[in-house]
């Protein structure tokens, strides 16, 4: 037992007692933060792009400009609405909606709902206009070509600026517009899409007017929505409405499947590389003279399991921290307590631990056995490819499961032992029959035992140099090189 502990401890410390481990751990929250911040930074660093509209009818340019203004107002509305709700609760949110319905501008509505003017202005400033219309210095393509190519700059009241695009519009709303979009920026054609939608809306309005229909009536009609409630018969009478809290376990089940997959994949790779290192560095012979093969196997598995628990704990802390930051700093509309409660629910954590242990032993033993046959990572890669393909299958199922937890295909796939840990943890919130949970678990445990026995035999042969990757290649048809 002491030897097992020593081997496990050495294995654990070989990862955890390195700067690289903690730096890579720190990158998890950094990546999370980057995923949130980088799009905002992009948004802020993108310059406000100037465009000109060349059309016989000046109303065309105004229609496009109004359309873009309305889009911008919607964005400001969404940001201010979320901020008002986050800081003032549901009552403030309702007040904001009421003010908006009465025609107040988003900024005014936010202040009316109790948001401090400075905070409201700061939130509104977070949302930037992407495009600004300027007076055209020339009215022909030839005249604008040097501006569009960046050789010349526009002279505007705000100073000189580049011309992003020129929109040449012909025709009218009744007969139909034609749009020529000129721009040297080939990677971003959002403005063309916006202009097309603006002109399309103008054409639709003209069409409605010709048909004797007031476009405002159609817009009003389109805004009409039924009051909708999602209810569950499984909830207590009088409180049947489905909330975010009710949906959370399903989301977390699928999320747990993804996390389990990520961790198992990471730690199984650790076992592979560590075993290859020991084989390549000729350490196994020394270990075998000091400890039983089972102690070496179990010690390594235990040590790396410790690493994975450290990783998991760090990810959970980082995840909950991220949720908290988003909630308090940026503003969100979901309460925190249910999220924390659901993540730390033993009903999720205990099955997660069970599926982790079994999945880890299954995949870890296989990866270790392969590692024991290889002297280098390159040798291992030839055999790893088919294994990784097998590992990718449950990942594909998980993507599909996010919207189809009741799928019979998912239920069938969860019976395949190598997939069971990932798919059953996702299915558990749907309350599958107990017999199915027990039967899939038994099948998975049996497979795990068979894999452990086979992997131990392979590990012994590999560790003693009696077998190499060539032996595996002979066993697997088509693997010759």
């Amino acid at each position, binding site marked *: 037992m*002491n*030897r097992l502990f*020593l*081997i496990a401890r*050495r294995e654990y410390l*070989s990862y955890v007692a*390195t700067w690289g481990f903690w730096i890579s751990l720190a990158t998890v929250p950094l990546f999370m933060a980057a995923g949130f911040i980088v799009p905002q930074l992009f948004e802020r660093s993108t310059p406000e792009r100037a465009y000109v509209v060349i059309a016989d009818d000046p109303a065309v340019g105004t229609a496009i400009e109004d359309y873009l203004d309305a889009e911008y107002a919607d964005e400001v509305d969404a940001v201010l609405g979320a901020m008002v709700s986050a800081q003032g609760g549901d009552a403030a949110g309702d007040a904001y909606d009421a003010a908006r319905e009465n025609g107040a501008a988003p900024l005014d509505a936010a202040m009316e709902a109790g948001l401090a003017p400075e905070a409201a202005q700061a939130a509104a400033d977070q949302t930037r206009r992407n495009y600004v219309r300027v007076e055209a210095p020339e009215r022909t393509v030839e005249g604008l070509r040097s501006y569009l190519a960046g050789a010349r700059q526009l002279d505007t009241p705000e100073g000189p600026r580049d011309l992003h695009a020129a929109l040449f519009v012909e025709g009218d709303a009744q007969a139909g517009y034609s749009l020529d979009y000129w721009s040297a920026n080939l990677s971003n054609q959002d403005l063309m899409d916006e202009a097309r939608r603006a002109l399309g809306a103008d054409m639709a309005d003209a069409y409605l007017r010709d048909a004797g229909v007031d476009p405002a009536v159609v817009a009003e009609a389109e805004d009409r929505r039924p009051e909708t409630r999602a209810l569950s018969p499984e909830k207590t009478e009088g409180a049947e409405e489905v909330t975010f809290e009710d949906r959370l376990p399903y989301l977390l089940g699928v999320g747990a499947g993804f996390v389990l997959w990520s961790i198992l994949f990471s730690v199984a790779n650790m076992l592979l590389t560590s075993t290859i290192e020991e084989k*390549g*560095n*000729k*350490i196994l*012979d*020394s*270990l*075998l*003279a*000091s*400890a*039983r093969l089972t102690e070496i196997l179990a010690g390594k598995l235990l040590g790396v399991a410790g690493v994975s628990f450290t990783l998991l704990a760090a990810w959970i802390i980082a995840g909950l921290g991220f949720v908290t930051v988003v909630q308090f700093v940026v503003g969100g509309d979901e309460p925190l307590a249910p999220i924390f409660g659901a993540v730390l629910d033993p009903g999720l954590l205990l099955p997660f631990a069970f599926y982790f242990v079994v999945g880890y032993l299954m995949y870890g033993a296989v990866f270790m056995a392969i590692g024991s046959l290889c002297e280098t990572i390159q040798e291992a890669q030839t055999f790893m490819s088919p294994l990784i393909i097998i590992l990718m299958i449950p990942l594909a199922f998980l993507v599909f499961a996010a919207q189809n937890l009741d799928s019979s295909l998912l239920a069938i796939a969860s019976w395949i032992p190598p997939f069971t840990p990932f798919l059953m943890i996702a299915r558990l919130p749907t309350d599958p029959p107990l017999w199915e949970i027990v039967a899939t678990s038994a099948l998975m445990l049996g497979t795990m035992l068979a894999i452990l026995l086979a992997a131990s035999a392979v590990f012994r042969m590999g560790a*003693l*140099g*009696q077998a190499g990757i060539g032996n595996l290649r002979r066993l697997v048809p088509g693997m010759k090189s």
Partner: protein
Amino acid sequence: MNNGPDAPPLSLEAVSKSFSGKPAVRDLSFTVRQGEIFGFLGPNGAGKTTSLRTALGIMTPDQGNVMLFGAPPSQKNLRRVGFLPEERGLYKKMTAEAVIVFFARLKGMGRGEALKKARALLDQYGLGDVAQKKLKTFSKGMAQKVQILAAIAHDPELVILDEPFSGLDPVNQRTLESLVRGLADGGATVIFSTHVMEHAERLCDRILLLSKGRTVFEGAVSAALDAAPRRVFVETDADVDVAALTAAIPGASAAREGEAETEGVRWRVDLPEGASTQPVLHAFVDKGAPLRMFEPMRTHLHDAFVELVEREDRPS
């Protein structure tokens, strides 16, 4: 079965081991006595490593018995053994001190005791300054020294060293020879395998010569040397026929080697194993033949090794 305190450290009885039907060790029997330095000799592929792995219980023999201190190999009696494998290596990211402590603790030493011993050994063998350095920064010779220290840190009663001298420069080979003698002087039994005979000749009390998985010799080094043919180089006048001169000596054969360095010619006289070189000298004296140089070659274990292996290979 003798498993008392006087039980031999290692005893193999009729041990055979095959891999994929190919025999690696065949009917191997020997006993290593307490306190001796026992050489396990043989050419590459003779079965030395397989025998040692079997002796340690790392491999199970197909047939025969292995006894370590009078009992089959187990984690209990393996604690009394220190092993340096032929395929050696260490955790390159660990420090010298940490790796010695790790292996000593695997053998049952307490942490404090292991740490104290590791520091003492590293100081004793000139590695005290690099005790806290990672092994990846060590030269091959230094790393090998650390591994040997890791194998003996727990003060084993039996030390098994598989090809310990390979990869070491002459200075470190001499250091290792001293270490082996020191272990034996301290009461430990030492078994080492090698295919370099000089080390065995200098160190071993007894040797076992293995060829193609079979024992071809087991006994004292002096007895092995007796198996080697004797050879004498003589220089004499060009008109002296040494072949005729030594024809009367049983088993002797002489061959002209060429011109002598200064004057006359050089002859080589081969004698049967164990024979004395004195009859050659007597032959010159008796016939009054001039003798400018008489150089009996010292017999080396290498010659005995070659002779014994070739003898084994010769069709009977």
